[in-house]
């Protein structure tokens, strides 16, 4: 007899079924039976399996050859962060700390400094972030920092975060986060929309200046 658990067995109360809790009724009862002579040959099963394999040879590949080839990314994709500069190449960030307090993973840490005379072409406001670090192992890419930023300084770009071999290499400082001054170094975030800029958002944008 093959059927250890047949339907009749399941319904009749015995010690085995009472102790195991059944959460759903979707479990299937498997009835084992002896193989007939066609099944004992194994060949039909082998050929049907091979047919599936050969069929897939002619199908379009599901993978791309990253990084030579890149998939199209949705405009709402949240990848590696970028600290933006304005048109004149000055850093937008004023180290107000709203991104850090909004961050649910507490991945951001900031140290502020006062802008000195002669640094007006580097920083837009009189205060700037002397240190801006994101722990990419803590970051959950929720984009709340982007929403919190009143100065349009931090954005999540469509770049994929590269891997690293040590934990220390995942703490991104300003050297990685701030975009370059020249055109080649700029990161395009024109497609990004903040939460309150989305259509149907109930919140009005705050005054910008």
């Amino acid at each position, binding site marked *: 007899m093959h059927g250890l658990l047949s339907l009749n067995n399941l319904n009749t109360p015995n010690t085995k079924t009472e102790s195991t809790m059944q959460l759903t009724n979707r479990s299937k009862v498997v009835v084992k039976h002896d193989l007939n002579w066609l099944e004992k040959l194994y060949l039909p099963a082998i050929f049907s399996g091979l047919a599936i394999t050969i069929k897939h040879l002619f199908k379009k590949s599901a993978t791309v050859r990253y990084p030579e080839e890149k998939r199209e990314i949705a405009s709402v994709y949240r990848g590696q962060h970028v600290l933006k500069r304005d048109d004149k190449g000055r850093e937008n960030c*004023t*180290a*107000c*700390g*709203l991104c*850090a*307090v909004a961050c649910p993973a*507490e991945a951001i840490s900031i140290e*502020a*400094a*006062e802008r000195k005379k002669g640094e007006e072409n580097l920083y837009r*406001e*009189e*205060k700037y972030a002397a240190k801006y670090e994101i722990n990419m192992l803590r970051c959950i890419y929720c984009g709340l920092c982007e929403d919190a930023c*009143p*100065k349009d300084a931090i954005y999540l770009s469509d770049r994929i975060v590269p891997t690293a071999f040590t934990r220390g290499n995942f703490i991104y400082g300003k050297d990685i986060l701030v975009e370059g001054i020249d055109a080649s170094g700029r990161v395009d975030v024109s497609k990004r929309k903040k939460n309150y800029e989305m259509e149907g958002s109930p919140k*009005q*944008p*705050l*005054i910008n*200046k």
Partner: protein
Amino acid sequence: MAKVTIDGIQIDVPDGTTILNAARMIGPDVAPPTMCYYSKLKTSGGYCRTCLVEVTAGSEKDPRPMPKLVASCRTTVMDGMVVANNTSAKVKDARAGVVEFLLLNHPLDCPVCDQAGECHLQDLSYDHGNYKTRTDFERRTFEKIDIGEKIQLHMTRCILCYRCVKTAEQITDGRVHGVINRGDHAEISTYIEQAIDNDFSGNVIDVCPVGALTDKTFRFKSRVWFTKPVDAHRNCENEKCSGKVVLWYQGEEVLRVTGRKDQWGEVEEFICNTCRFDKKQTSDWTIEGPRKINRHSVISANHYMNMVKPKEFKLNEIKQITE
């Protein structure tokens, strides 16, 4: 004793109490916001108009309503007076207008300002203001004035509440700063740019409702919501100084020392400059414990006080529970 009704809540208060103080006796839900009134400073109030309320019945004997909204910090109660504060649409509208006027020239540089997070004007504009500005002209600017090593003056942020002037008049002896010029040109200044070097001059930082007067030793060091407030005291050599303060820690470091503020944002007792600026070591102080901050305040963000760590289960314990 006079019986007043504020927002439908009745209370008996002594004669001569202002409507504002009667509302404060009931509680923070009915108390009008204030920007210039400061209960610890005599003759303060009456400048900012944020505490306007509607008096729907003047008194028992003369129950006619008052024709205009009145400043609750300067109007005393009458027996049988009925006042509408938050329940009045007129008051809400007027308050939104007051906020708009206060913000006409106030720069919105909250991301740079050290007061952000404990700024009364921020709270006021969130609660009563509009989200949009209707003006597009340049805001008023001033020439920068250095008023000393310890206190930073940002005249552009000043709303001319006169609190610091009253502090200088009443708390310090020999006032050296005041308001000069008139109307739109009025500004807080020290005469002939004299440095403020009185023992209690640092209290102007605490009384300032906005970020016009801030602590220079704390300037750009951190944001208030990254610091941890701790109650502490010391036996101050100065007789007038209570020595009861709040230390604002970041890690092991005391970044700032301030007076203790009550639920109305007013300091309980004034402290001297030595306590405020020179005693920034933990060893200088007797620590009383973490300060209780309203959990709706941004200052309490990411501070895990009174949190109980959930119990960790071992694998065999989980098996015991599930089996």
